[in-house]
């Protein structure tokens, strides 16, 4: 049994494991937004948006910038890189490659195999 969990890494995975939080990240990737703008965009109650934003801030995936009396939230790209590496992993990477292989094999058989 794991004695001590890898808090940072697991926390990021836990954070993005929740579909609502992924949806928020997807919104904030496009542009920074206030809580009010997120509420409008997602059509969720404000407490729901705030709750998930809090988790995303705690794992450092989202940062807050204050402009006047508005608080803008944005994605922190450095912290999302682990996620990018994760995407590189199995199903995205190899699943994608196997699709390429499939069309390549069809191509070369239709066009006749390369002559050696």
């Amino acid at each position, binding site marked *: *049994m*794991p*004695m*001590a*969990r*890898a808090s*940072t*890494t*697991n926390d990021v*995975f*836990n954070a*993005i*494991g929740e*579909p609502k939080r*992924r*949806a928020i*990240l*997807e919104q904030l*990737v*496009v542009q920074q937004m206030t809580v009010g703008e997120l509420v409008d965009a997602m059509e969720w109650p404000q407490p729901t948006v705030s709750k998930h934003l809090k988790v995303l801030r705690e794992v450092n995936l989202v940062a807050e910038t204050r402009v006047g009396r508005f608080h803008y939230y944005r*994605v922190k*790209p*450095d912290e*999302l*890189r*682990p*996620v*990018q*590496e*994760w*995407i*590189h*992993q*199995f*199903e*995205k*990477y*190899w*699943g*994608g*490659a*196997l699709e*390429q*292989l*499939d*069309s*390549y*094999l*069809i191509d070369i*058989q239709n066009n006749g*195999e*390369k002559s050696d």
Partner: protein
Amino acid sequence: MTSKSIEPSVIVCEFDAPRELVFDAWTQVEHLNNWMFPMPGCQCEFVSADIKAGGTSLHKLIMPNGSEMWLFTRYEEVSAPEKLVFLQYMSNEAGDILPHTHMPGWPKDMVATLHFESLSDTKTKITFYWEPRNPTDEELAVFEASRADHHKGWGAGMDQLVAYLAGTN
């Protein structure tokens, strides 16, 4: 020898091609350069390839936005046309394996095991297993966590994230 129970991730897929050809596609550079990338619009260039048991290869992926990624592969078993076992790492252009600095708990060694099965003269099934080798408890926990996410799926929004992240490299 620790015996942790690891359940590998698995992809099963079928190809309309004879088994020998499918296997060659995995082990011959003139084939590999044409397909071994995760999405259309990428380019693949093997700069070295000694694809046999105990051998290694180094290749470069050029993503659609021009960013490059180097991958170093160590082959453990190359049994034509049935089985292929390798470990693949993100590396630099010299083939030095890069640490997972942004992903501290991710297993250092991931093993890919491919079984090639002939279904007919023109149909081949690949069963592709992917699992950490000798993971620490922490690495195993992270592998499990990432896999749980695989099954939830990210949908189309994920592609946007990937494009965004690639642009910030």
